[in-house]
């Protein structure tokens, strides 16, 4: 791996002065959009963990006008991995099958335990940085290795490429990959949704292309802005989204043209769908999402952990009423964490129930850590 020592210094998308100028444009545009639409507040939803990471890391929320809610949607693949999927992975590890997984999945609990808990009790669990590390682990150890694969289409492509590239017989995939577009549809269809525009994830769009959002924008009358991940990318995308709301212009706007094309990465798409297909399934804290889960096709069953270890069944069952968690309502901005009966009692950062508590940037997690949304301007 090569990292040029001054690579981060050369990034041109981190200019605080330009950010403050964009923030001023955003404030003006929000005022115009409120006047044009006759609303008191506007809500823009992003559907990407990396967007939330950029917003949180650079403190961009404190630059956003009070009347604009930037809501974190179902965009963190780890957060939306459903409890039964984690239970499957834990069961494999309990059964002595080495489970390799990404670091951020390690501590997330299913209905009972997390992979970290299983590891503490002696089960074989390895944190890997890429699918190729997991393949290498299978190759060198000779043990049965199941790669607990999570992530959206961007990450799913790497899993597909590894399988097509050839893997040893003792390597299998437990797919918890998700497809993001169907989840946007679920949010848009909610009758109480007040989302006026979406920011689409730039890296996922690198694979899928921006055109894939066009039928969505048209069907729901909601503009979609494909956005990058540097602070100026995010702010510029917010400005474009609010302009589109103001102008009632429900089209797709590509504000990440340095990476994203209309058609996307066609060879990568071919590999993705050669290995995977979409199937309906649960997303943590949201609902069953039609065609939202990415699963291995029948031709890959030899490497599908669900078939290879069909005899391994998770022990125990979910102890919580499935409808007690109101993550979905919190995600669309219709409820706050304190409206949830599980908040701070049954649902804590150490033992999260819903997606909003899993991620360190989730609304419930932030409220839990700091007793509410902090007023960050006060120390200025």
């Amino acid at each position, binding site marked *: *791996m*090569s*990292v*040029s*020592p*001054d*690579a*981060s*210094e050369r990034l041109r998308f981190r200019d*605080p002065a330009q*950010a*403050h100028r964009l923030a001023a444009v955003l404030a003006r545009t929000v005022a115009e959009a409120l006047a044009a639409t006759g609303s008191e507040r506007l809500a823009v939803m992003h559907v*990407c*963990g*990396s967007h939330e*990471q950029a917003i*949180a*890391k*650079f*403190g*961009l*929320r*404190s*630059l956003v006008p009070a009347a604009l809610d930037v809501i974190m949607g179902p*965009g*963190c*693949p*780890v*957060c939306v991995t459903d409890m039964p999927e984690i239970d499957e992975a834990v069961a494999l590890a309990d059964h002595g099958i080495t489970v390799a997984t*990404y*670091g*951020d*999945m*390690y*501590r997330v609990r299913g209905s009972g335990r997390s992979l*970290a*808990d299983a590891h*503490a*009790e002696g089960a074989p669990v390895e*944190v*890997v*940085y890429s699918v190729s*590390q997991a393949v290498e682990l299978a190759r060198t150890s000779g043990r049965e290795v199941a790669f607990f694969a*999570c*992530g959206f289409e961007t*990450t799913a492509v790497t899993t597909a490429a590894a399988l097509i590239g050839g893997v040893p017989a003792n390597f299998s995939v437990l797919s918890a990959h998700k497809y993001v577009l169907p989840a946007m549809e679920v949010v848009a269809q909610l009758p109480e949704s007040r989302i006026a525009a979406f920011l689409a994830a730039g890296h996922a769009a690198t694979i899928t292309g921006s055109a894939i959002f066009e039928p969505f924008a048209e069907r729901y009358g909601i503009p979609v802005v494909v956005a990058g991940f540097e*602070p100026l990318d995010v702010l510029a995308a917010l400005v474009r989204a609010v302009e589109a709301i103001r102008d009632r212009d429900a089209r797709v706007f590509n504000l990440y043209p340095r990476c994203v094309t209309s058609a996307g990465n066609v060879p990568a798409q071919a590999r993705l769908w050669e290995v995977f297909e979409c199937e309906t399934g649960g997303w943590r804290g949201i609902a069953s999402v039609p065609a939202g889960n990415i699963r291995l096709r029948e031709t890959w069953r030899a490497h599908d952990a669900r078939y290879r270890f069909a005899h391994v069944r998770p022990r125990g069952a979910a102890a919580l009423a499935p409808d007690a968690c109101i993550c979905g309502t919190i995600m669309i901005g219709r409820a706050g964490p304190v409206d949830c009966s599980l908040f701070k009692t049954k649902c804590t*950062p*150490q033992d999260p129930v819903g997606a909003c508590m899993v991620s*360190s940037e989730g609304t419930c997690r*932030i409220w839990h*850590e*700091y007793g509410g949304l*902090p007023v*960050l*301007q*006060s*120390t*200025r």
Partner: protein
Amino acid sequence: MTVTLAHGAGGRSMRRLVTDQFAAQFAPSPHAVVGLAALDDGAVLRVGDHQLVVTTDAHVVWPTFFPGGDIGRLAICGTVNDLAVMGATAPLGITAAIVIEEGYPLADLERIRASMVQACREAGTTVVAGDTKVMGRGELDGIVITTTGVGLAEYVVTDCGLRPGHVIIVTGCIADHGLAVMAVRHALAFETPPQSDVAPINHLVAEVLRVGRGDVSAMKDPTRGGVASALHEMAEKSGVGIVLDELAIPVTPAARAVSELLGIDPLFVANEGKAVIGVAPAAARAVMSVLRATDQGRDAAVIGRCVDEHAGTIVVDTGFGRRLLAEPEGELLPRIC
């Protein structure tokens, strides 16, 4: 309930374990100026007119040898630095208890011992007593070194003396040690791998205390949990808020690139040769110039200031906006999303 890795990672879980299981269970010492309950880097005992600082640390690290150091150097520096940040910058001596797994290569042991000797020489101290034990194969993983250090302090510096207006100084570039170890652990092959900063900082701290004296209000060595964890402890115990200027935090370009790649905030990453120092404003300039004049402290920077609002909370001014700094919890793992 069982003990998990999160209990050893330097965050809130660890503090809870230590408080519940130990700090609350032992009777307070009549000799202690700073005792176990303070959960500081070490204890301060009154001996006649003197203040004796005592600290102890068990060292386990995988890999045992990492870019920039090894467990031997770490064991000496960890204890020397814990003494130093309490104000004892000339250690009287160190004890070392070494537990070794049967079958451990003697050549590795010799390398580790040589590192310990070298680190002692740099710190101006030596090992004055020790113990060795060998355990059966598989009963422990390689080697564990526990070191205890003692030293006298003229000015005792705790981690709870911050007041509004005090500035926060870090003595050099952060995150190098943790990233060096993590790069090896996750088998990430960089062309220029990050190097651990493991080094004794007692001479550096002595300079700071020489010019800063009583104006040095709090000090910690930001090891596990990184600068974030150290600041949270200092802010909470002192009852102040801290505003950090993120653009002023010194991080080498290589460490920044690696941390961005892994999705890990450098503020959360362990250091083994740095101090975080709170200083009353009157002495800030003198402390900074004495630090910058040394080789170890040439990248020292003022990274924040204490405020009288949001006590116990750290706000990061990113240059773009502001965010809250969370307290690290559990071991640091690369993220995908």
